């Protein structure tokens, strides 16, 4: 038997009391694309961060070509020609592509022209269309990822670990990435591809390792498996099927109406350009698009956190264009923000305090001029129960909860206190399947309660299963509004990439 290129043997890793990896053994060969498949929190990233030297294993050994090695830092990992593309890029956005690539890899005086030429050569070799002199902040997310890959290529890496590389890409960019992965592995390099998307696995991998709760649950060659078998290995508990919503089963009353909404940046480039749409009572209106195309600004403008330059917003016949955030909340507007740590909760406060946060000024909570603690406690416990939040009680600090449970509390708060219209901005980002399911049911229930819902998501499957209609955003403009049944993933992909409706057909 051949010695594998890289091998992990019996790796275990514990975070405080939680087991992240237990007895994980895996190997990868030259020329192979190994997919590491599993749900969020299954321990895929942890395991790879150990190989990359970011974490240290509590037990176990690492071998390269049969020789035992220890990797204490990313720098040492690079010495063994291992490179890892993190989920969150570590690029200096104010610096150029070249500056980012050579950071830490050059000594003394820098010959900028030489370095730029070297990098341009690499980009040509792999057919990347990236300008070495451009600043990172002027690049798209897809291009930034290419810069991360170029960093690895600049260092001559032979093993490339990619952590959920397709999460931020358009379908077309995903294709380009897959081509690169295949090309790169054909040149005798190894790739480990971390993902939870079955389709990608079947497309690119030669071998698949499935992880669940920190343990390896399957190691199969692609030819000998199929998506059904993989998903079974991935998910232990059966998930209740969501009822597919039918188009147009909402009432015709307009709830939220946005007309000609435009938001300008300081420099005058519009972040949102002439956005108009209506959301009806009992309708889920999906906003699709690659993140950073104006969705965040739209949510902020509707909830009142961002001043618009032009246009009007109406909620139930009330012109809320110039109303304060507080007034909008009183009118029944809810907002589940995408970044719950930043906009959703105060992590060092208890759950009941976080529940109070949204409507703290309301006389509902007052008793003799003080906060009615008992009422608050009851309400919080009610939310905990109703939304199946796994928490010791209303007194637990928000940060003690897992991401999914934090999100359930926010969703519960918004749903309970907002009677008319709720924005869900990326409500399931970073959640595991159980929590996702929970949030989805909550959204559908609010639809049944005849509330109008705006669902912003980069997960197309989420948009497709939940929305009645979908608006596709690209560079701050609506590419088109469609009934969900009129769309398929290819068409929506092209629209998300900036092709207009006619071209997309």
């Amino acid at each position, binding site marked *: 038997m051949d010695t594998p290129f890289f091998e992990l043997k019996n790796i275990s890793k514990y975070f405080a009391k939680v087991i992240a990896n237990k007895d994980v053994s895996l190997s990868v060969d030259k020329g192979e694309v190994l997919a590491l498949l599993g749900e969020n929190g299954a321990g895929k990233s942890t395991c790879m961060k150990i190989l990359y030297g970011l974490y240290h294993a509590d037990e176990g050994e690492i071998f390269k070509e049969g020789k035992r090695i220890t990797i204490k830092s990313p720098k*040492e990992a690079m010495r063994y020609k291992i490179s890892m593309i*993190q989920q969150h890029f*570590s690029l*200096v956005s104010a610096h150029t592509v070249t500056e980012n690539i050579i*950071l*830490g890899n050059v000594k003394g005086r820098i010959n900028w022209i030489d370095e730029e030429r070297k990098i341009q050569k690499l980009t040509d070799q792999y057919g990347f269309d990236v300008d070495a002199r451009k600043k990172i902040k002027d690049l798209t997310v897809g291009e930034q990822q290419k810069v991360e890959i170029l960093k690895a290529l600049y260092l001559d890496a032979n093993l490339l670990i990619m952590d959920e590389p397709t999460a931020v890409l358009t379908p077309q960019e995903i294709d380009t990435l897959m081509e690169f992965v295949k090309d790169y592995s054909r040149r005798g390099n190894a790739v480990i591809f971390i993902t939870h998307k079955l389709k990608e696995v079947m497309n690119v991998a030669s071998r698949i390792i499935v992880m669940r709760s920190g343990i390896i649950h399957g190691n199969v060659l692609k030819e000998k498996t199929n998506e059904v078998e993989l998903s079974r290995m991935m998910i232990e508990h059966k998930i209740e099927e969501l009822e597919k919503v039918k188009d147009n089963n909402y009432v015709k009353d307009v709830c939220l109406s946005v007309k000609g909404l435009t938001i300008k940046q300081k420099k005058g480039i519009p972040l949102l350009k002439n956005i108009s749409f209506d959301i009806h009572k009992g309708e889920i209106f999906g906003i699709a698009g690659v993140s950073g195309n104006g969705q965040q600004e739209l949510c902020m403008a509707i909830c009142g956190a961002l001043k618009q330059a032009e246009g009007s917003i109406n909620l139930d016949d009330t012109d809320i264009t110039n109303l304060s955030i507080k007034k909008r909340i009183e009118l029944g507007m809810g907002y589940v923000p995408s970044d719950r740590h930043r906009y959703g909760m105060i992590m060092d406060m208890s759950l009941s305090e976080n529940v109070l946060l949204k409507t703290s000024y309301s006389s509902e909570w007052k008793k003799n001029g003080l906060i009615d603690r008992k009422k608050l406690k009851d309400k919080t416990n009610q939310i905990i129960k109703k939304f199946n939040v796994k928490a010791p009680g209303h007194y637990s600090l928000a940060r003690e909860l897992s991401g999914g449970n934090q999100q359930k509390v926010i969703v519960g708060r918004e749903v309970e206190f907002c009677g008319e219209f709720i924005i869900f901005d990326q409500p399931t980002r970073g959640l595991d399947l159980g929590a996702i399911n929970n949030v989805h049911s909550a959204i559908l229930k609010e639809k049944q309660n005849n509330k109008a819902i705006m669902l912003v998501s980069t997960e197309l499957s989420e948009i497709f299963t939940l929305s009645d209609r979908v608006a596709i955003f690209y560079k701050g403009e609506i590419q088109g509004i469609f009934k969900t049944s009129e769309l398929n993933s290819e068409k929506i992909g092209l629209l998300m990439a900036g092709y207009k409706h006619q071209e997309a057909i």
Partner: protein
Amino acid sequence: MIVNLLSRAMMMSTPLLFGSLSEVFSERTGVMVTAIEGIFLMGAWAGFTAAYITGSLALGILFAALAGLSVAILYAFIVVTLKQHQIVTGTAINILIIGLCSFLQRVVFGVPLSPLTVEPLKKIALPLLSKIPLIGTIFFNQNILTYSIYILVPLGFFILYKTSLGLVIRSTGENPEAVDVSGISVSKVRFMTVAASGIMCGIAGAFYSIGYLGMFTTNIIGGRGWIAFAICFLGNWNPIGAFIGTLIFGLAEAFAILMQSNSATMLPNELFIALPYILTIILTISRKSFNVPSKLGTAYIKEN
């Protein structure tokens, strides 16, 4: 008179340049040296004391550098190693140093009846160059520390933009994570830069005591550390910008000194003394676009 004013302006710019240039480097790594006022004062005291006791100005400057270094190491240890709040730490150290310097001054010298003085740094007229009319007197008849800024500015620019060290420094303030991932210790970069800044700022402090006045009082610095701190902002975290900023402030200070000695003025003396400080406020407000290092003032805490 104009030549005299400009020559004095060059001289008064010198310590500000030392201070703001080191601030540029530190802040590019993400650490504001808010202890700068204290480091200046420590440098002024140590420089004076060493020069007075040994009779050697060179030793005075050396001790000032060492004193500045020790305060900077204390500051770096608290904010970089222990990751404490930069403004709070700096303020505490500044207060500490004022007390420490008055204390040490008493311990070493007691309460002298007449002010203690040393002969300040001599001006060295460079051969030939100093003979150029006007320019010669302004630029080439200065003391050794002022001459060194002619080298420090281009050197600082070169290091920051043309070397890998500069790239690492600039990246550390923008995205320490990226630096960490490329295998460089963020703490080490920050610690070393702050330490080097301490040396520079210690010398800057000594300039006031032994480079120019030839004496020491506990209010000798009088907020000039903060002015250097502000110049770094105004100069957009760029050595050239810092240089231009120090020239403006040097001029303001020279003007104030000139007006002070010129009693035939209509305006009150105090106004001119306050001039550099007023200028700081006006320029800080009027400065439009800033190029602030995005992680300025933030401790780098590694996950796990």
